[in-house]
């Protein structure tokens, strides 16, 4: 028999053979790396105060500006993630830390985000003299403050909610605290965290646009980005540029949504303790790509390696094997000391604040600012009511049609993410050309971006109403009005409250941007605490900025405690569907 020799065949193991998805994945990965490197370089270019950064309205610059805006977003998101992991873990683990950290977080949540910007920007500039990095940091910090609190709360709550049996299993099988943090607590918190991250980023877009054009104490810096582009377009009354900016923003948000959050949400499903059929998310194309492309096997191997490193690092840490013995007497004394320490600290801080603010202002001005706050309060209340009247019927109408709702929901989510400030020029020029009342017509701007939360939640609430209830109602021949009063309104109430809380918080925050608006040389100023803070920020009058922020903060806290918390507990206790 003749032996036939052929060419040797290179036998690729099937695992290593590239597949179609790699064709998309490879350029994406390389491109991203290059872009990040380039944009990072741009951030630290030398800069001297007073220098004008050239922003051009040429639409060809928009991709670059957009990229830099997106990068700021991403950095802020990473910072928020790191911050919230640490903060929430500390609050959930230590009873003493919790006592301080959680109320502080609650207050931080009600401080207007742009207030952080006005106060911190000078500090950041001093940190990096001769470089743009200070301004970049200030802008990123502002975005960070719009995301971090909400994510931290979500994590903290999830950490507290880890089921007892899983905790016991982790201890029984000797996971160290470090291991169970990464293997139990963080995975458990993931689905909710991803959802909150998405919501936070929606809010972040608004502030990234507002924080790129920084004008504090006579300094006017426009960091290259979509926000600065729109600010310039507004100054120059350039309608086409405004249009371009809106289009570019649309594209960038769409990309963020498709490439980051849809995959994250779908992936997060895996970590849910309960498998709920309704919530199953269709795997988005990008996730499929990530999972199918061989290229990413390497990424996954890297992830595995990091995780096992994390877990072995944990082994090196000392582990408290002993169950903490009960030493009531000693613990109590530490508690007393700790409480005294906190109390003294708070008193001292209060004293310093009063001295700082009062030295510059006076009782009259403080009262004046409280009055301004009240005006803004009226504005917020009326707007929320109007939005409710408008969106509740619409939301119910959509929610009753599940197929339509499924299509509308991502659109509404998208609208919520879209920074409403891009539309301000349209409204402002309308007010100017039709000579409308500024006090009234500036107000809708406050709710432009946040009203969608009401619609979104009402749709979700209506969808969740059991169809049985509707069958019963139609079976009993319930009239239209009765149907609303007895079935729909109580049924969607909890969802509505959730939406309204978010919308109202957003509106307070937006007041700083919306009570003073410009279009070219026309500046419209409405009476309100937002306008007060904005004007003082421009002047760089720190005691007055602090006063404004403190009063605004107080109003938000009171509004939340007296109205929303009560409605919330009412909804929790009486109108829950289970």
């Amino acid at each position: 028999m003749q032996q036939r020799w052929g060419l040797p065949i290179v036998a690729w193991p099937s695992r290593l053979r590239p597949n179609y998805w790699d064709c998309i994945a490879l350029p994406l990965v390389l491109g991203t790396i290059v872009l990040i490197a380039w944009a990072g370089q741009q951030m630290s270019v030398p800069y001297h105060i007073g220098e004008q950064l050239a922003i051009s309205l040429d639409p060809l610059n928009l991709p670059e500006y957009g990229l830099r805006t997106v990068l700021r977003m991403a950095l802020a998101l990473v910072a928020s993630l790191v911050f919230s992991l640490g903060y929430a873990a500390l609050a959930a683990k230590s009873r003493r830390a919790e006592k301080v950290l959680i109320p502080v977080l609650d207050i931080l949540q009600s401080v207007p985000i742009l207030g952080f910007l006005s106060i911190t920007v000078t500090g950041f500039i001093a940190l990096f003299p001769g470089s743009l990095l200070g301004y970049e940091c200030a802008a990123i910090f502002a975005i960070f403050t719009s995301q971090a609190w909400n994510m931290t709360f979500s994590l903290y709550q999830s950490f507290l909610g880890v089921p007892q049996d899983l905790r016991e299993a982790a201890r029984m099988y000797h996971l160290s605290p470090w291991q169970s943090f990464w293997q139990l607590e963080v995975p458990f918190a993931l689905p909710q965290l991803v959802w909150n991250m998405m919501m936070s980023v929606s809010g972040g877009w608004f502030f990234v646009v507002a924080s790129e054009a920084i004008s504090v104490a006579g300094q006017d810096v426009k960091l290259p980005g979509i926000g600065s582009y729109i600010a310039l377009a507004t100054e120059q009354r350039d309608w086409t540029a405004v249009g371009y900016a809106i289009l570019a923003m649309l594209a960038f948000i769409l990309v963020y949504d498709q490439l980051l959050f849809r995959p994250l949400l779908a992936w997060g499903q895996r970590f849910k303790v309960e498998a709920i059929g309704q919530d199953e998310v269709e795997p988005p194309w990008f996730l499929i790509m990530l999972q199918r492309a061989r290229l990413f096997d390497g990424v996954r191997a890297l992830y595995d390696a990091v995780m096992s490193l994390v877990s072995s690092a944990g082994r090196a840490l000392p582990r408290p094997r002993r169950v903490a013995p009960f030493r009531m007497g000693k613990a109590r004394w530490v508690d007393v000391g700790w409480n005294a320490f906190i109390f003294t600290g708070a008193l001292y801080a209060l004293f310093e604040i009063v001295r700082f603010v009062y030295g510059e202002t006076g009782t009259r001005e403080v009262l004046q600012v409280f009055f301004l706050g009240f005006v803004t309060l009226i504005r917020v209340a009326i707007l929320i009511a109007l939005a409710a009247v408008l969106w509740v019927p619409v939301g119910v109408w959509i929610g009753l049609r599940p197929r339509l709702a499924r299509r509308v929901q991502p659109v509404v989510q998208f609208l919520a993410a879209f920074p409403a400030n891009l539309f301000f020029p349209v409204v402002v020029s309308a007010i100017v050309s039709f000579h409308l009342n500024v006090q009234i017509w500036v107000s809708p701007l406050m709710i432009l971006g946040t009203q969608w939360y009401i619609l979104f939640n009402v749709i979700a609430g209506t969808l969740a109403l059991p169809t049985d209830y509707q069958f019963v109602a139609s079976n009993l021949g319930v009239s239209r009005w009765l149907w609303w009063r007895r079935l729909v309104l109580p049924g969607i109430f909890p969802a509505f409250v959730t939406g309204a809380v978010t919308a109202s918080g957003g509106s307070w925050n937006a007041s700083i941007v919306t009570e003073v608006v410009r279009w070219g040389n026309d500046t419209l100023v409405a009476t309100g605490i937002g306008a007060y803070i904005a004007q003082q920020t421009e002047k760089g009058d720190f005691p007055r900025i602090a006063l404004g922020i403190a009063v605004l903060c107080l109003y938000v806290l009171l509004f939340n405690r007296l109205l929303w918390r009560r409605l919330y507990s009412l909804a929790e206790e009486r109108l829950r569907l289970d």
Partner: protein
Amino acid sequence: MPDDSRLIYAEQVCKTYQTAATPGRLVLDHVDFALREGEIVAILGKSGSGKSTFLRVLAGLTPPSEGRVAYRGQLVDGPAHGIAMVFQTFALFPWLTVLGNVELGLEAQGVPRAERRQRALKAIDLIGLDGFESAYPKELSGGMRQRVGFARALVVNPDVLLLDEPFSALDVLTAETLRGDLMDLWVERRMPTKGIIFVSHNIEEAVEIADRIIIFGSDPGHIRAEIAVPLPRPRDVTSPRFTQIVDEVYSILTTVPGREPGRRGARPETIGIGYRLPAASIQQLVGLLDAICAAPYSGRADLPHLVESEHIEDEALFVLIEALQLLGFAQVAGGDIWATPAGRNFAEADLQGRKQIFGDQLRGHIPLVAHIRKVLDERPGHSAPEGRFLAELEDHLSEEEAHEVLETVINWGRYAELFAYDYDRGVLSLENPT
């Protein structure tokens, strides 16, 4: 005297739950216990008798307030190596696959990857899970999930296995299969485990598996009785000896303390206002009493039979039987239950008549009801806030228990139309809504 065959033992273990508000409530009262090599011990008791807490003390998950626990002579002051636990709710990590879950304990111990994998696969094979290695828990049925729970426990080669109601979240058929498989492993010595402690509320299950049954009494939890089960394996559940032991356990568990036979006719004054009333629903009470009074029982029933014919879980049965006894509708002794004259009258009465009789029994036998009625009668507006009664109850019970008891009493009182309750305002009153 030191006893070398003791794997794990507890001496004079007390457990007090302390909160900021209450001075501390005793849930375990001087419990002495030992597990010997080669032994399976079942712990039975009503819900709230502290049996799960005791298991957690043995596991080192929660420290005893007094007394001590030792495993192989070493003081247990945290989860010990060599003790593994299987949970009622499985407690699997949903984001890990079957393999990942089983490997978890080994990973925590720092076992190298290759060895980890090999041992995990062996455990998975042993418990009959092969083919499911890459599945996530949510893809599995309850029975398969609990098999993962067992594999995770067995993979660390435990000396002692603690099982916390491992079969009670499963349906009857699945539970039986898994139980059978576990017993096969035990009898054939295919697992390294030397002793098993297992908490249950299913009496037959306990008699089927255990060499010894410990029965816990409530308020505070203590060991009430200990019964040896000297039957050869595999056990014949229809044998007279088996039935006899089951009957014996039933009779211990269903006798209200202080009313043991021989003290027949002991007056209901033995319970006070702060007695932890069983949370029995009216519908089930009425249903059970009807069943006892109707054919084939005609007023007297054998408890194991009743459980079978009425499809009641043992745990629910204890609650109902205690309530019937407290209300003076039935009496229990020797594994039998029979209706009292009041119980028979109730069963024969019409709806209004039943309410009347129920009301009379409530006022006569349940001090808390009599107390509430008295307060409402005396108050000018004939109404009182629930907080008042809760505060009184909390002198004897935990906050949660006080709420439970008040809820039970409100349900009973509403049925008997003794008083009304306004949920929104949290007010008890004599008037019904107009």
